[in-house]
């Protein structure tokens, strides 16, 4: 029942200046970024840039290192997202009962999430140390041969993945747990009264109720995994033999090791477009038109 004075609604003045600032800043930035990516700007040769059209983008398509990095990004993102969601959901279902220290457990699960990512990387590098690390010590207790966790091109990517899973599965757990607790319990009890077995209740009643929360956390994890940088920088620096170089990391190397600003921004733009396409696809799969959103 608001009066029809919306045109002079003073609350507009609260957000419009800031929205305008953010809009102007992002439009200017976007135009500047596109402009740079169409030139050959390098910090090594300042002031001698010239227009090169789409050369940087064409170069990307013919750059085997970039293509390998793109593929690795996809692999890492899919694995991290799927494993974290599956593992997180399993733990949530496991913890779905009343027990004495539930609040404390929840607090402890928070710790990896708020830990500085650089420190997480250092921690796992320490545990994965080939000679003195805990991981190899545990293997030796089981009589298994030593593994060169971060030094072997075939294994290193998965070692980084382990650290990522360690840090972010608790996030999935806490988020899905919150959703589970705000979900109504009536449908569950009704299904039980109707004689459904416990797994049937979980599969046909509980999981559909958690769908929205799972979809949201999957989107968030996918966005963050595509952009993952800290763990790679600390644990492997893209090595050995480029075996852990993701597209985001390659873009960083091109920009700040080779100082090839234009090509790096072309990579960043491709990464952004790629992320958006992936997200929109995921979004339309997870939230179909008839869905609950």
């Amino acid at each position, binding site marked *: 029942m608001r009066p029809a004075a919306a045109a002079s609604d003073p609350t507009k003045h*609260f957000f419009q200046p800031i*929205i305008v600032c953010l809009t102007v800043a992002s439009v200017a*930035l976007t135009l500047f970024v596109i402009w740079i990516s169409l030139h050959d700007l390098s*910090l090594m040769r300042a002031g001698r840039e010239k227009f090169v059209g789409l050369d940087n983008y064409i170069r990307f398509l013919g750059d085997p290192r970039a293509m390998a990095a793109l593929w690795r990004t996809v692999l890492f993102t899919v694995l991290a997202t799927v494993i974290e969601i599956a593992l997180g959901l399993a733990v949530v279902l496991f913890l779905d009962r009343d027990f004495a220290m539930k609040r404390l457990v929840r607090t402890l699960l928070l710790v990896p999430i*708020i830990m500085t990512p650089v420190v997480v990387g250092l*921690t796992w590098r320490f545990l994965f140390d080939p000679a003195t690390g805990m991981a190899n010590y545990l293997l030796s207790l089981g009589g298994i041969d030593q593994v060169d966790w971060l030094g072997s091109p075939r294994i290193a990517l998965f070692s980084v993945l382990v650290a990522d899973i360690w840090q972010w599965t608790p996030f999935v757990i806490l988020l899905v747990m919150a959703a589970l607790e705000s979900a109504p319990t009536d449908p569950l009890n009704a299904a039980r009264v109707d004689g459904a077995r416990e797994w049937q209740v979980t599969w046909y009643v509980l999981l559909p109720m958690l769908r929205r929360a799972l979809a949201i956390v999957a989107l968030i994890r996918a966005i963050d995994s595509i952009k993952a940088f800290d763990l790679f920088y600390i644990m492997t620096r893209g090595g050995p033999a480029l075996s852990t170089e993701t597209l985001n990391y390659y873009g960083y190397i091109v920009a700040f090791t080779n100082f090839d600003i234009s090509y790096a*921004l072309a990579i*960043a733009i491709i990464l952004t477009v790629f992320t958006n396409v992936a997200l929109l696809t995921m979004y339309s799969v997870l939230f179909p038109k008839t869905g609950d959103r």
Partner: protein
Amino acid sequence: MARRALFYVGLALLLLAVLFPLYWVVVTSFKTTRDAFAIPPVWLFSPTLDNYRTVFANRGFLSAFANSFIVSILSSALAVAVGSVAAYGLAQQPAELRRAREKFILSLRIAPALLFVIPMYYLATRIGALNKHWLLIAAYAFVNVPFAISLLITFFDDIPKELRDAARVDGAREFSIFWHVYLPAARGGIIATLILCVLFTWNEFFVALVLTGRDTQTLPVSITSFLTFQGIQWGALTAAATLIMLPMIVLGVLVQGQVVRGMTLGSVKG
């Protein structure tokens, strides 16, 4: 009974997996070099503070601590101040307009940091701002403002509309409603938002790696220096790591209910 025992075994394994890496780093920071690298590992040992002495004797680390502190507090305060004004305005809008604005604010978060860090770096080298604190504060405020807005909206939405209507009937202007009604009512949410901004800024690595110079290095950047000089000094490194993460874990536990809400921007309320 057996099922119950099995549950607690499972729970113990889960907590072990979550907490052991953290425990191991903290414990190693109190060990001598010989104990730290003993195989099999030493579980009981006489603790030493040598590693912490090494870290505190490192001038670079101390100034990084100061830099991290200043940069995260100032940029977060700036973001929350600006963000709360905008969020108040947005929270009063009809749902349709709001959703469009919120979507725009969210879309700012999807772009990889590389996209805006490179042009910022380029411009900063041109005007010689690379080694200045304000550059970093501005960069983080720019990153934190959209986050603060979207999170604060969810807290302002929790305030009953009747409070605002009553104040308007009393003839209060919008700004005084914002200042005298909304800010006090959402105090907990505003503090939580501020803490979350500080937490993200303190932990952030990529932007800091690119945009800091010798005098403005923040902690995550500074700690990497222990990695390159004469191999890896794990003792000092674990002590430094403990010092970096400890304040954040304390802050995080203080606002624990809001962390999940913050990281999902209110799409799931914790």
